[in-house]
């Protein structure tokens, strides 16, 4: 019995690099890796829930996607929404972080208030924004009327719906970028700034020639983090517009969700989500390459 116990212990000792991470790897495989592999497999199949078994059709779903106008609409909406919201979030996040980095009376109070939108549950705030953006009863048109501006249709018009959603997204997520950049700013060395002041550099010069290059790696990390979520933005868009009016705010991610769970066309839905996955991957590879180059230089 004793020898058996020793044998087990020595086996564990010798294979500790496999045994200890095993539970995590198994869990990861079941909840992450297997669904991804199954999704890729499903993207080569035609299958509507309930109507027979999945039927292998090779690349047909991918070919169909490229001739599907709704796919191109989804792609366009995705790039428009993400391009605009990510740029605004990065620029505003950086500027606000630089401002909050200065010590002033009540700065910690302002910082606390400022991160509220970021801390709130996306669906909850989206529900409130949906009411505020309603052109008939919403508060935003009331505010516009107070400053003498004409009412807007906000989310009810194809022309303004994406801008309205960008507004919500920027309001919600800019604080996250600010927090990351602020942490970066706090850790910057003081010497270059002192040298610049002695040399008589102006504030914009300090910002462009010292702060921006030094904070660049942090900004790239913030961009990567935010883009991962932003390119597959779901909760805010789904809660506020469900992709409407019509399909005017339907991103590719939302279209893939509807295809799988409203139209029950799981094969095609899987194809669309794989394409989103590839786009997010390519975007991040590009960002990482730019980041690597800028660091080398």
């Amino acid at each position: 019995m004793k020898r058996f116990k020793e044998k087990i212990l020595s086996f564990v000792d010798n294979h500790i690099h496999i045994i200890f991470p095993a539970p995590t790897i198994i869990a990861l495989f079941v909840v992450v890796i297997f669904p991804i592999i199954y999704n890729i497999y499903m993207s080569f199949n035609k299958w509507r829930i309930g109507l027979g078994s999945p039927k292998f059709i090779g690349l047909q779903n991918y070919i169909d996607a490229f001739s599907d106008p709704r796919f191109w609409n989804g792609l366009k909406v995705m790039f428009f929404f993400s391009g605009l919201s990510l740029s605004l979030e990065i620029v505003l996040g950086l500027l606000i972080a630089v401002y909050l980095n200065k010590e002033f009376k009540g700065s910690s109070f302002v910082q606390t208030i400022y991160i509220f939108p970021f801390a709130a549950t996306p669906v909850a705030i989206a529900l409130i924004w949906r009411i505020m953006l309603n052109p008939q009863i919403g508060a935003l048109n009331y505010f516009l009327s107070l400053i003498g501006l004409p009412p807007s249709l906000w989310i009810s018009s194809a022309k303004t719906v994406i801008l309205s959603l960008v507004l919500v997204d920027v309001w919600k997520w800019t604080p996250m970028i600010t927090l990351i950049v602020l942490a970066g700013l706090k850790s910057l060395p003081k010497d270059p700034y002192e040298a610049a002041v002695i040399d008589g550099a102006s504030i914009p010069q300090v910002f462009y020639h010292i702060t921006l290059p030094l904070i660049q790696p942090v900004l790239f990390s913030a961009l990567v983090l935010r883009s991962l979520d932003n390119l597959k933005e779901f909760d805010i868009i789904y809660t506020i517009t469900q992709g409407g009016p019509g399909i005017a705010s339907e991103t590719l991610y939302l279209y893939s969700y509807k295809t799988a769970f409203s139209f029950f066309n799981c094969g095609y839905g899987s194809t669309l989500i794989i394409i989103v996955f590839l786009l997010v991957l390519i975007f991040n590879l590009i960002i990482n390459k730019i980041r690597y180059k800028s660091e080398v230089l």
Partner: protein
Amino acid sequence: MKIKLQKVLILTLVFVTFLSVTVLADINWRQFEGTEIRLLMNKHPFTTFIEPKIAEFEEKTGIKVVMEVFPEDQFRDKRLIELNAGGKVDGFMIMPGQAKLHYWTAGWLAPLEGFMTNPNLTNIKEWDLGDFFAGPMTGARIEGHQIGVVINAEASLLAYRKDLFEKFNVKVPETMEELEAAAKFFHKKVVDEKEMIGITLRGKAAAATSQFVDFLYTFGGSWTDSEGNANIASPESINAFDFYGKLLREYGPKGPTMYHWAESTSTFMDGTAAMIFDANVFKSLYENPEESKVAGKVGYTTIPAGPGGRLPHVSNWSLAVSGTATPECQKATWLFVQWATNKENELGALLSGVPAGRESAWTDPKFVSTDKTPDWTASSLKSFAIGQPQWNPPVLNVSEIRDIVGQVIVDSIDGKDVKVSAEQGAKIMDQKMEK
């Protein structure tokens, strides 16, 4: 001669007795005693009515009923996933116009005629199949098979502010031209210091197709042509899109393209709209004095006539027996369906506000004597009689096709070229339709 007459009389008596015993005798309700059936139900006023009465059925039959109730969206997903997984589901609620083709093709719907005509399983005379409205019952039929029994017949009605129509002496619209004229008359009119909206309708893409279909038919259009191809770009269909879009764009609320039934009914209940065209079942909302400012001030009529006549759709919620259940559970579930849809229960449901599927319920003195909105009753009954059972496009992928048609409605409301949009929609519809 006398003996012969006596013989005939005796024979007649024997025959009549035999007939009454076989036809009038009740079935053996306890033949499936001890069986357990599991039903998936939508959180619907009918479910609210029938759920407390289940004990009565269990006592009568000895069948144990497990009823699971979910809000509509969740209910649809749950039903689909459970049926696909092959779990124990013996019966469920279904809107045949939405899901029958998909569910029938998947084998999830048991044909009911075998049960309905079996004297051992159905009290044929008392249950009285002929008492159900023909339109909705036809809607619950596929390839000649009955796949559900109607618990709620639904049609869309034009509801209008009776008080304002009387005050301004406006004629209740009988035709589409009159409908537009009335909407125009009331739009932006200031009543009680409030600026009115002419008419409120659903404008939110797929959701709007549920009511738009009545305009489509009334203008002479259709979902598909005789060969099954998309027909939404026919001149008649384009006129319907054009008219519906114009009503909302020019005489509707602000931002109508995001209007689902909740937004539309709220606008009407708030007292800011002169008219609304939506499902008759929403009468319970309009007439609820705690939530509606227009309770007691609403008149009801059928859809106004157009170039194609007066052709509303009629849809329904039905109770279905699952095709995946065991034969014994199917029969036990049929007993439940038969009991839940008997004359007494359908009348009870109507009295609690569900537009029931049986004619006898609507003519019952208990209902007639307490009916506070006889124009709603008359318009609903008329719509059931003239209604088209084809509510949605006749395809497997109903939601996907509704989305495509919905985009044309949105384009029309936005004032885009309807012909171009409808032609584009028809092209995509032809590519995507699965039958």
